[in-house]
């Protein structure tokens, strides 16, 4: 029974895999905390901006969204796919890509589809599916901050204004908590008219400078940039969360496997010892006889 050696080798290999997955889990946990902090840090800015925008537009004509709000016949759709550069994070990247394919099937059949990918994984997947990926931003995750994302958002807005795209949608994983993410689809352009908060009765009597319309026009690009930034931050936090969960499960599985292998190994070892004893006893008995 040559099983012993093979089992020993498998034990070594599984336990080193287990070491790697558990290290990756630790790393993701640390990165997750940082990504979560970034989400928390941008929240005051985003919520205040939204509040001001709602406040201002509650009294201004809702149709007054300017060039970014113009609804027109949709010929070209730009899909912004936010994924990650690395795998080993469960269904994280596949979910984004699947949601995109579904949306194309259901809503954009026959339209000209272009893809702007943030993160390598969905870019690779969608290219294989024959979609035209016009831009890929893989390096934003190296040092993620607002200034890295703002130019991308500006580029998209410019493309919308000059008619290159008629509709822009973002697909990303929204961060709920470390263990769960949901893939969401958000309309980016044209901007949906800001929701008038229902409790607009409490509105203070503000002085507006220069004028409400101009403030709205100034704020919309800012809020668009913030929206994209939020998606990327959420996606990054989700990625680490997803990887942490995936690696946790992998570590658990490896532990379970090690247990089984050790059992097999010990059984084989005992069997071989028993055999040896039997042989010795048999040999001794033959000599005496």
């Amino acid at each position, binding site marked *: 029974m040559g099983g012993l050696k093979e089992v020993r080798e498998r034990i070594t290999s599984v336990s080193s895999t287990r070491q790697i997955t558990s290290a990756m889990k630790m790393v993701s946990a640390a990165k997750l905390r940082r990504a979560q902090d*970034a989400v928390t*840090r*941008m929240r*005051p*800015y*985003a919520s*205040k*901006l939204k509040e*001001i925008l709602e*406040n*201002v537009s509650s009294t201004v004509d809702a149709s007054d969204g300017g060039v970014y709000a113009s609804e027109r016949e949709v010929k070209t759709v730009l899909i912004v796919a936010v994924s990650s550069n690395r795998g080993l994070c469960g269904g994280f990247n596949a979910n984004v890509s699947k949601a995109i394919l579904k949306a194309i099937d259901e809503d954009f059949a026959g339209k000209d589809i272009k893809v702007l990918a943030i993160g390598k994984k969905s870019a690779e997947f969608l290219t294989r599916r024959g979609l035209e990926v016009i831009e890929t931003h893989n390096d934003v995750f190296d040092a993620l*901050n*607002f*200034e890295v994302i*703002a130019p991308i958002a500006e580029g998209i807005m410019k493309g919308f204004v000059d008619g290159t795209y008629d509709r822009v949608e973002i697909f990303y994983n929204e961060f709920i908590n470390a263990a769960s993410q949901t893939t969401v689809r958000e309309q980016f352009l044209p901007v949906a008219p800001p929701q008038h908060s229902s409790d607009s009765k409490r509105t*203070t*009597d*503000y*002085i*507006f*400078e*220069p004028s409400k319309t*101009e*403030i709205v026009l*100034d*704020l919309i690009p*800012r809020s668009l*940039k*913030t929206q994209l*930034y939020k998606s990327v931050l959420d996606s990054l936090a989700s990625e680490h969360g997803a990887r942490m969960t995936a690696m946790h499960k992998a570590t658990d599985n490896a532990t379970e496997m090690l247990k089984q292998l050790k059992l097999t190994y010990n059984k084989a070892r005992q069997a071989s010892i028993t055999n040896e004893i039997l042989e010795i006893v048999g040999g001794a008995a033959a000599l005496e006889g």
Partner: protein
Amino acid sequence: MKVEIVTPDVKVFEGQARHVQLPGAKGLFGVLENHASIISTLIAGKVKVEAADGDLHIFNITGGVVEVNSNKVIVLAEKVL
């Protein structure tokens, strides 16, 4: 009055202040205690905050928006240099 200066990445300043000077779209303007409620866009320039303890803090912003309401000044700046 309370002053906050926030960017998408970080809260740059938070504290009590006596006076804030802002680069409004229609020109520089100052905010003192009990200023009327105002929302104004800001252009690139300096935000000067005279803190309650007399310290002067200066921030170079690239533009943004400010809301003043019931003695609370919130400056949303896209970037602080």
